[in-house]
């Protein structure tokens, strides 16, 4: 099984440098995990490295399709508060 990077990736390179399996490559729009190479860090680390350093919530999906870092888990901003702030900005 493998992890997956989706379009909210901001191309910050952090995951590339820490992947023990050399599984992450630069895609056309954002970085990608080569499924056949990703080991989920099994045998190297207790925690999946890409998911442990990625600064963007939702950018990396676990093998089961769930976000490794769900909304609010990295920034500490409660998702409701973020939605509220975005609405306020839209309304201006």
């Amino acid at each position, binding site marked *: 099984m493998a992890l997956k990077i989706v379009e*909210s990736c*901001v*191309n*910050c*390179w*952090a995951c*590339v*440098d*820490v992947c023990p399996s050399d599984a992450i490559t630069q895609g056309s729009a954002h970085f990608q995990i080569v499924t056949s190479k990703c080991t989920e860090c099994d045998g190297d*680390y*207790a*925690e999946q*490295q890409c998911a*442990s*350093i990625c*600064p*963007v919530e939702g950018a990396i999906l676990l093998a089961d399709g769930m976000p490794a870092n769900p909304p609010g888990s*990295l*920034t*500490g*901003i409660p998702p409701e*508060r*973020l939605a509220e*702030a975005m609405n*306020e*900005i839209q309304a*201006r």
Partner: protein
Amino acid sequence: MELSVLEHGKAGSSSAGGCSSSSCGSTDDQLSHLPDSIRAKVQNHPCYSEEAHHYFARMHVAVAPACNIQCHYCNRKYDCANESRPGVVSEVLTPDQAVKKVKAVAATIPQMTVLGIAGPGDPLANPQRTFETFRQLTEQAPDIKLCVSTNGLALPDCVEELAKHNIDHVTITINCVDPKIGAKIYPWIYWNNKRIRGVKAAEILIRQQQKGLEMLVERGILVKVNSVMIPGVNDEHLKEVSRIVKEKGAFLHNVMPLIAEAEHGTFYGVMGQRSPDPEELQDLQDSCAGDMNMMRHCRQCRADAVGMLGEDRGDEFTLEKIEQMDIDYEAAMVKRAAVQASIMEELDEKAAQKARLANVSVPSLTEGRISRNYRSVQMAVATNGGGLINEHFGHAREFLIYEASPEGVRFIGHRKVDQFCVGNDSCGEKESALSGSIRALKGCEAVLCSKIGFEPWSDLEAAGIHPNGEHAMEPIEEAVMAVYQEMIAAGRLNGEKALFQANA
């Protein structure tokens, strides 16, 4: 003032050559107290020397996208061309591209003395890209000073390598020395292959920062400490930070205001954490100053800024444009040396002149021509470089703030007119540029510029700020002193409060 940060014995005696600082005669005098070896390192560095920033240019190359910590004032998702703040860039470069860009810029802007790597992530979390860039530049542009700024987490591991590349300036951002406060600023760090949160994370970060600071000082590498002032979180605490980093040998401490807007999507922005007022920032800078160098001209540059501080010519040097430039690198280096030598000569001449002036005017102050009873006055200055009043009020995107008092003139900071946005339709704020300028000048009683239109003139007067275009093309400090003396002569500074009406 003696600078106890540096070797005690030497600090007072080595400045025999008079004063080279632009804030000569004031308590904020930066360079004249430094040992010659350090002065030589900083006198043409726009980020370290207040005076140099009027004359010399710097650039940052964005080769370091990855980061190993999260700060509550940063959001890696955000990139807007109108944004000017650390952590923001338009394009990330490879080391090869960066080297090309540096050489192109240095050939076009002969005042360029310094190349910094500042992000957009943490340079030391990108060691290969950062050090490859430094390695190539040491070879290909040996006249350019190299510097780097970091959050400090990976610093102890990199000190050897930094020393090897002849980096003589390092900036560490230190916002706290107390992990409980740190936990309110840093939600997590990536450390030893794990994401670590809370107080534990802050503890590790603080430990690494302090250790890195000590190791650099041991090796004689100049260290500047940056701190972000976050009202209610670390504002009081920064006084302690200042004391500690000073004891450990940091050369400069730079307290910067938090930039927090909901639009940026940062934790502080979205949660409504306020930024400090200019007055609050100044008070904190004053109380952190003590006997240490404080830096007040920092512009919180983008990680891809190009040009003089306060300006950004990055658009002239996109990769595409660089490809088309035809550059003779050898000739450019020769030209740089000549241009920079003549600037240094000019500065030395100015310093000598100032020393002569000081000898003339200081005794007259004590004899009572300027009685010590007059209160101090803050004035804003519009300049586009060269240490002169040479910018039109309406064109100024920032103002330098000076304080005149019976002791002399000192530079105390700068205020941006539109700190977050140029006010085009894609951004939220559409406040008029004029009211923005007036708000930025709060606390100032006069604004000195080369020219000013009728409309801003009357609005400024209504706000209690006297516009003054009579000192166009004059050196800033002399003009500020002249206006101060005019105010005294006009009887405006008698007593505690300003005498002119705010609502004329």
